[in-house]
């Protein structure tokens, strides 16, 4: 229902604002133009998106995700001290993080949900510090290669769609670190 409210709100605001500013005809034309642009955008980004999904499948089958999980485990033990000795939880979390890094969103979500379910057993109904950390880390994007965005840039005529990668990595690292710091800080004062 949230989307229904957002969509209706956008349309109503545009009509009211357009009429008030005397841009009624432009608003009317924009509706049709947007529908066409949506299909063009999808077609134009299809190639890049499918190619990268293919590469990610190769990475998945060759066991890159498991290798990453093993590398990540020591770091994750520090982030989730309450579950550092719980094999099942740590396995789910490290698999979740490595799937997120590789951009395998469909694989990452069920893994993270399993970790969340296992964690909630110790404190039913209430989000423990570790569970808050898991959620905060998953709300910050850590995808190494943002394929959809690259597809959108190609669709807009970009020759070097991946030149933003260093900027994306920098922004992601700062965003995740801020989330982790905020979670650690709030956990001391929020009871």
């Amino acid at each position, binding site marked *: 229902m949230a*989307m229904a409210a*957002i*969509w209706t709100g*956008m*349309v109503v605001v*545009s*009509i009211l*604002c*357009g009429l008030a500013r005397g841009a009624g005809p432009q*608003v009317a034309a*924009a*509706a049709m133009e*947007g*529908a066409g642009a*949506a*299909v063009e*955008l*999808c077609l134009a980004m299809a190639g890049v*998106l*499918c190619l990268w*999904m*293919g*590469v990610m*499948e*190769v*990475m998945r089958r*060759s066991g*890159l995700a498991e290798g990453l999980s093993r590398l990540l485990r020591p770091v994750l033990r520090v982030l989730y001290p309450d579950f550092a000795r719980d094999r099942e939880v740590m396995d789910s979390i490290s698999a979740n993080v490595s799937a997120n890094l590789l951009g395998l969103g469909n694989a990452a979500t069920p893994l993270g949900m399993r970790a*969340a*379910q296992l964690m*909630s057993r110790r404190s039913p*109904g*209430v*989000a423990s510090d570790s569970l*808050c950390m898991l*959620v905060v880390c998953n*709300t*910050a*994007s850590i995808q190494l290669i943002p394929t959809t*965005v690259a597809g*959108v*840039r190609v*669709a*807009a*005529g*970009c020759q*070097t769609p*991946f030149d933003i*990668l260093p*900027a994306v990595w*920098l*922004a*992601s690292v*700062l*965003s*995740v*670190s801020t*989330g982790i710091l*905020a979670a650690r800080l*709030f956990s001391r004062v929020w009871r």
Partner: protein
Amino acid sequence: MELLFTMLIPLILAGTALYAMARRVDVYDALLCGAKDGLSVLLRIVPALVALLPAVYMLRASGALELAAEALGPVLSALGIPAETVGLMLVRPVSGSTALGVGAELISSYGPDSLVGRTAAVMLGSTETTFYTIAVYFGAAGIVKTRYAVPAALCADLAGFLAAAWAVRLLFPA
């Protein structure tokens, strides 16, 4: 350094293929299977974008986005964020496909290599649909008391937006 990033993608392609061959994975079959999954992802995006892009285009044509940018412009430019991205930042934590629509509109109308276009792309690439993720995880775990998860996640989003704008200015000086 610049050559490295231009060649990064072909190098990743070659590296992945060689590693997979060494692990005796059928590279070509995996490529085709993944690409097919890509089509189903697209199939899921198409209806959402067909619904949302008209609304985004209408908002833009009506001047509502400009009004919002003007209202928040002084604050945003003090923070080093291009005011044009205000709409993107407002919808990003709430709806992933709306954010994709708003971002795609910015990238195509300002150009993918413009300051606004690049900032929008980096913002999209370095943040997530926060409220959706929180709903899914806490829903799965049956959590009622979410404590500080929402404010901490929003701190991360805010930092992501600021960092996106700063990173683009730093790495792509005009």
